[in-house]
């Protein structure tokens, strides 16, 4: 067994380039003869676009060409990758999404024209001279108001601003209603899941290049899934076949969902570079990112829980309005539906569930997946509601959860919302959380806070997640317009080193380290002999990319399958070299031996024979040692865990300080615990950001008030404590070869309700018992106002 195999907390190999300034991010790429694109964006939320006059600007120094919506009327619409069917069996309303606005602008930031010039400064200067005539229209902002019969329409060609009205499971609706009618207790809560902006630290960048000699276009872009961009942009927008289009996503500075989607800027630079026969580069400014990167969350929900006299959950009913923004971003329709409704059982045995979701168009930036995507929204509702139920019933929130948990011997567990959890042990993660958060010592700490005039509170949340998205046949039935497998090619070189080509993309997750550990473990050679190659459609097999905590569960499984093929073939070669039967060959620690003998050949001996086949069974075996596998999972994976937060509230100011945060997760088997721990830390950081700080706020004219890092409060080092993280409660996934579940989103899913529950606990302990809920972010102003109104 190599020391850097599965389970080893190996240091990340990618760190060496990042720590020395040798990373290669998209903005570091500069091509010979490159032009610069500057996007002119709408400054109003909703308006009739009467004219765009470029005459004066075209005469400015350095200007090569100015593009407007007119240039794109015959070009395809930016496509949506998921079609949801509504409660009545009709497809969702799906408006056209032009590369550049034509006829109308629909949100602040909607691109209207692009100046392409010799330098960025010249492009920006000339943009000042482009004259745009817009007649402002009343904006549609509030989701419920958007559905009024007389509301202005975001898209004239649609019948209303309703994208879809989705019910799940529709057949359960009357049984759910009946259960509520006969319930001993009903607890309800209205809440907002605040609109967020992902803000990966690297803004988006796109560079388009066209080579006439082979009629080949290349797009360098900040993407989590270059193959998906190639498919969407090539097939649906620009009509470029895959073999004439290469998409490269080099080092990418964080994604968090917002770099999954296909964006207009990618199509633009590719299109313009073909028109102008010169490379065209666009680099987003941060303020531009605020109004052009897809936003996240933005749900308004009413949720109700029915309980019997013994406090068993008997039914759950939710009613959610989900903001789509002005256009349908790539996976937007799936987020409030299949990534949200299917998780409403949480960790509980609730037998009857009905979820209604109305997706609404508004004059705001499109909303799509952000770390967790639908699952944080489901967990937040449920875990806030269970806490409220415990408070209203006068029981312990820990015991109420424990009583209603699915028991460890009940797996596999069929929920009433379609999914089957394969494994889990919620009692174990909850027990571990209680231990690592020193819950037993809380009362003493609360007294100490009280002595200092502060209110201390403790809150927990227990989440379920569906990761490793997902079986293609299933997602196809649910409306996905893509398969969700992953592929890998394992190329063994003559001297035994290995290049692994994967369709998963790494943008902080450390795949180059952990994927190498998997292959090293299977063959028994050091991971240092293995390279992981990703991010370029020209040299990797088809890929569906990195999102939904799927890389190891799906992409890693494809690597396992390809490596198994390699090992099988290598055993045949070894059997020939050792003059033994293939069935007698054993592979251990990088050495093939004949069982029960001292005859052996090492890894490099076999790989050399594959490429120098002088003594080789050519009649039955091809030379070479390279294999490809596609892996399509049979189910989602279901990570789960208990999160605990301890806060102090200053009753004078309403300021919340997080004193401790603990997480006990079940991620199944773990390949690199160092990386897993880091993923949890990062998720918790973002979840605390959502709970206390972050909020994308529009005014009543549709102007984004939190439109820069001066205005949008990102979590900083001061806002968080050291975290206590445990992943010793492990129930391996039963249906993928690694037994892994995925860890990328958990922190962002479990932490917001834990924080809010802790603040409510602190306020109640301080005597503010009238406070039922405070919407995120729990800013000092909101907490203070709630205390005054209590």
């Amino acid at each position, binding site marked *: 067994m190599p020391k850097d195999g599965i389970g080893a907390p190996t240091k*990340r190999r990618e760190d060496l380039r990042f720590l020395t*300034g040798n990373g290669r991010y998209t903005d570091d790429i500069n091509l010979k003869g490159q032009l610069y694109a500057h996007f002119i964006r709408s400054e109003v939320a909703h308006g009739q676009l009467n004219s765009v006059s470029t005459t004066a600007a075209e005469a400015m120094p350095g200007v090569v060409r100015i593009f407007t919506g007119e240039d794109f009327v015959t070009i395809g619409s930016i496509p949506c990758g998921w079609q949801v069917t509504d409660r009545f069996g009709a497809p969702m309303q799906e408006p056209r999404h032009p590369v550049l606005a034509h006829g109308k602008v629909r949100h602040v930031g909607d691109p209207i024209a692009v100046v392409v010039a010799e330098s960025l400064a010249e492009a920006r200067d000339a943009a000042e001279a482009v004259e745009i005539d817009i007649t402002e229209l009343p904006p549609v902002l509030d989701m419920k108001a958007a559905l009024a019969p007389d509301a202005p329409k975001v898209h004239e060609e649609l019948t209303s601003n309703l994208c879809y009205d989705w019910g799940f499971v529709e057949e359960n609706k009357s049984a759910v209603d009946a259960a509520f009618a006969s319930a001993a207790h009903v607890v309800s809560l209205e809440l907002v899941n605040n609109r967020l902006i992902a803000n990966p630290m690297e803004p988006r960048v796109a560079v388009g290049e066209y080579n006439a000699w082979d009629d080949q276009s290349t797009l360098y872009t900040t993407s989590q899934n270059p193959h998906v961009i190639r498919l969407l942009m090539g097939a649906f927008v620009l009509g470029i076949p895959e073999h004439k289009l290469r998409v490269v996503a080099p080092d990418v500075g964080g994604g968090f969902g917002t770099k999954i989607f296909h964006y207009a800027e990618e199509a633009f630079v590719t299109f313009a570079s073909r028109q102008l026969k010169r490379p065209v580069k666009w680099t987003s400014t941060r303020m531009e990112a605020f109004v052009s990167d897809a936003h996240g969350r933005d749900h308004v929900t009413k949720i109700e829980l029915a309980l019997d006299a013994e406090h068993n959950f008997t039914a759950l009913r939710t009613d959610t309005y989900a903001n789509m923004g002005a256009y349908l971003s790539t996976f937007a329709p799936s987020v409030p539906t299949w990534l949200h409704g299917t998780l409403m059982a949480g960790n509980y045995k609730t037998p009857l569930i009905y979820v209604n979701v109305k997706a609404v168009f508004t004059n705001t930036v499109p909303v799509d997946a952000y770390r967790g995507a639908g699952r944080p929204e489901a967990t937040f509702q449920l875990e806030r509601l269970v806490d409220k139920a415990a408070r209203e019933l006068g029981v312990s929130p820990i015991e109420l959860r424990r009583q209603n948990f699915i028991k460890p011997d009940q797996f596999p567990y069929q929920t009433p919302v379609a999914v089957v959890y394969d494994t889990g042990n919620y009692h174990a993660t909850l027990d571990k959380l209680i231990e690592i958060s020193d819950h037993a010592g809380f009362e003493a700490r609360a007294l100490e806070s009280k002595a200092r005039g502060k209110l201390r509170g403790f809150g927990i949340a227990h989440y379920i997640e569906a990761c490793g998205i997902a079986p293609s046949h299933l997602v196809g039935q649910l409306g996905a317009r893509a398969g969700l497998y992953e592929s890998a090619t394992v190329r063994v070189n003559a001297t035994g080193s290995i290049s692994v080509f994967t369709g998963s993309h790494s943008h902080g997750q450390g795949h180059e380290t952990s994927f190498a550990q998997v292959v090293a473990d299977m063959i028994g050679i050091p991971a240092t002999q293995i390279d992981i190659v990703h991010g370029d459609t020209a040299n990797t097999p088809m890929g569906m990319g990195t999102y939904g905590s799927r890389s190891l569960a799906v992409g890693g499984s494809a690597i396992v399958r390809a490596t198994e093929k390699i090992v099988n073939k290598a055993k045949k070669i070894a059997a020939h070299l050792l003059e033994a039967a293939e069935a007698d060959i054993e592979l251990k620690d990088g050495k093939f031996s004949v069982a029960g003998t001292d005859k052996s050949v090492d890894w490099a001996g076999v790989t050399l024979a594959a490429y120098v086949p002088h003594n080789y069974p050519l009649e039955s075996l091809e030379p070479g040692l390279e294999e490809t596998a596609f892996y399509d999972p049979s189910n989602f994976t279901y990570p789960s865990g208990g999160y605990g937060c301890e806060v102090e509230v200053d009753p004078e100011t309403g300021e919340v300080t997080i004193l401790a945060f603990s997480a006990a997760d079940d991620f199944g088997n773990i390949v690199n615990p160092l990386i897993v721990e880091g993923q949890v830390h*990062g998720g*918790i950081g*973002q979840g605390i950001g959502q709970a206390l700080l972050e909020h994308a706020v529009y005014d009543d004219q549709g102007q984004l008030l939190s439109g820069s*890092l001066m205005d949008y409060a*990102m979590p900083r*080092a001061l806002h968080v404590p*050291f975290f206590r993280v445990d992943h010793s409660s492990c129930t391996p996934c039963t249906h993928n070869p690694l037994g892994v579940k995925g860890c990328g989103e958990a922190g962002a899913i479990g932490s917001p309700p834990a924080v809010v529950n802790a603040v409510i606990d602190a306020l109640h302990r301080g005597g503010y018992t009238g406070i039922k809920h405070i919407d995120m972010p729990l800013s000092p102003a909101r907490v203070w106002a709630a205390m005054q109104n209590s």
Partner: protein
Amino acid sequence: MTKLTMTVNGRKMSGTAEGRTLLSDFLRQDLGLTGTHVGCDTSQCGACTVHIDGLAVKSCAVLAMECEGAEVTTIEGMANKDGSLSVLQQAFQDHHGLQCGFCTPGMVMSAAALLQDNPRPSETEIRHHLEGNICRCTGYHNIVKAVLAASGQPVPEGVTATD
């Protein structure tokens, strides 16, 4: 365009800049030192932090012209002379203090300046000092841990990395 000379990472380097050229753009575009990153436009994120005459400065908030004759150090100049990682850089790797790597150059430059002024900073002092550097990946846990470790201080429990 005006000719401009400064000492960068110990080497005298020249280029041309407009009056409005920012130091961050000059380093990236003219000198090809792309290790310095630009993550925002309001001097909030700190990814572009470099040292100018020994002080940690956000290079997006300085005009290149202001640095005529200055001593500038960027992330490319932080490793030991033999190319191995410095103590601080090594601590970032040992404690998994980076994920996507985009904020990392600024974090290292900012933390290096802290350790120069305050060789044994407390956890709170580290968190205060890094207030001007935003990381979206790590939740700061392992960054603070790395700075504590680099200054020879005990770190909170967690997974211990191996080679």
